[in-house]
């Protein structure tokens, strides 16, 4: 009989936390609890008595967890960060992804590794999606800026839409700037002149 591994996941990002829980729960030797961790952390740690805690490094309460586990005098259940020699590369990967892990002393690396590997992958995935979303939003707002600048040029100088865009693009090329930057400068200037 394999001992059950109790994992506490603390993540403000509920979607990501739930995905991690879903992935970990496929292993029936693992029980997982998810907390957003805004309050009641002391009680959670006592009641759940996890073997392994996964926490978002950006979590505002990380120092509270850290103080309860490793930073101060040892508790009844010694908890360490997963940074023995074999774990350093893995820990670096975890830190780069933005997740940190606290493990009960003596928990074997073979048990921790797959859990941490999975968490790292989820964190990277969420990060990638967030970056994609930001890129899309930036593109959208640039598009709106350029449209406004085109409109200004069309009414001020009686240009067609194509001519207005061509003028913006030529100016950008001449000045070594991006079209959206030129458009933004034009809008600011127009507002000042109103």
């Amino acid at each position: 009989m394999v001992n059950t591994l109790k994992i506490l996941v603390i993540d403000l990002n509920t979607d990501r936390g739930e995905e991690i829980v879903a992935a970990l729960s496929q292993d029936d030797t693992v029980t997982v609890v998810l907390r957003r961790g805004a309050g009641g952390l002391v009680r959670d740690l006592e009641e759940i008595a996890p073997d392994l805690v996964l926490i978002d490094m950006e979590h505002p309460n990380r120092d509270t967890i850290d103080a309860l586990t490793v930073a101060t005098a040892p508790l009844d259940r010694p908890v360490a960060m997963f940074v023995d020699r074999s774990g350093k590369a893995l820990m670096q990967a975890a830190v780069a992804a933005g997740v940190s892990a606290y493990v009960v002393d003596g928990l074997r690396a073979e048990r921790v590794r797959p859990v941490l590997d999975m968490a790292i992958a989820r964190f990277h995935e969420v990060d990638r999606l967030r970056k994609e979303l930001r890129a899309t939003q930036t593109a959208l707002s640039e598009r709106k800026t350029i449209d406004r600048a085109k409109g200004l040029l069309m009414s001020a100088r009686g240009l067609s839409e194509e001519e207005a865009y061509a003028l913006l693009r030529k100016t950008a090329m001449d000045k070594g700037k991006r079209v959206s930057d030129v458009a933004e400068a034009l809008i600011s200037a127009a507002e000042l002149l109103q």
Partner: protein
Amino acid sequence: MIGADVSLGFIPLTDAALPIIALEMGFAAEEGVALTLVRETSWSTIRDKIALGVYPAAHMLAPLAIAMSAGVGPMRAGLVAPMLLGTNGDTLTARPDFADRLVEHGARFGDAMATGRALVKCADPGGLRVGVPFPHSMHQELVRLLVERSGGDVSKVTFLTAPPKVLPEVLKAGEVDVFMVGEPWGSVAVERGAGEILLSGADIWTASPEKVLALQADWAMAHPDTMDALVRALYRASMWLTVSGNLGVAAEILALPHYLDASPMTIERALLGRLQLRHSGATVDAPDVIRLSGLGALYPWQSAAAFIAERAAPAWGISPIRAQAAALETFRPDLMHRALGPLHVSVPMAHARIEGRTELGVSVPGTSGPVRVGRSGFFDRSEFHPQT
């Protein structure tokens, strides 16, 4: 000049000013350092990232740097601190109803002995509950000093760790009676009506080495020129802050959303040596509440490090000798001397002093004439003699 890249982790606090000013006012660039600042939300993240080599430099609690060098905690790493990033900077804040009781029992701003005795008298039988941002900190050390030397029992004090921005909520929820935190977060709690400032940390010890420039020792030894340039850039930022007309600009810069994300007026008040103690109350003088400007605020006295080590060794579970050795390996006035050499400024000749001997005055002999360093005095008039 070719820029050497340096990334530095910091926590949003007023005493992150030197790296921020060094970057924003161009001192880092002038010294040939391409500085990147990385904002973090927790000290444990700074600890982990400097230990794992994510960045070589950080704004760090002085006791944390010594603890890491001593191998205390989960992340051990040899660190050196060629300078402080500031002296003092903490305030002790109480829930308004508790503050009223303390005042009835004699608590008075600026008088740590009277306030300490009131705290001891008014604490619940279960003991005083104190919020601090991190265990290895001057915050915790100053509270222990205050209680112990006001006749209280430190073993009865319960410390609860919570991030600075969260502490006012923890106070409001009644989970702690008081909290000690770096500016501007005590003043922010006052503005929200969540707390009243009882004391500034400087009322307990006038020369508390609050934060250091922590560098990975291996990195520092491999890149001496870059380290020296960084120290010079930070020193020049501190000299810029000696001009009182610059403090408003400094507060505006620190207030930016990607730095402290707080009100510039709140930040500026402490920079000007003033504090508002209670909501819609008057401001009072607190000249030493935070010292960021000039060499005296930045010199890493080995005696101050030794004091921290002696006090913390039992809690760290290591021998006083090992703690002392780590303190002296970490606080490195010799590195500050070397770095500032080209600037021809006078730097204290001594690496240690008797902490608490205020009559030694504000000036000490320096490499080229007397240096103003400011007094080191404890509220109970005790002295700490470092072993040499």
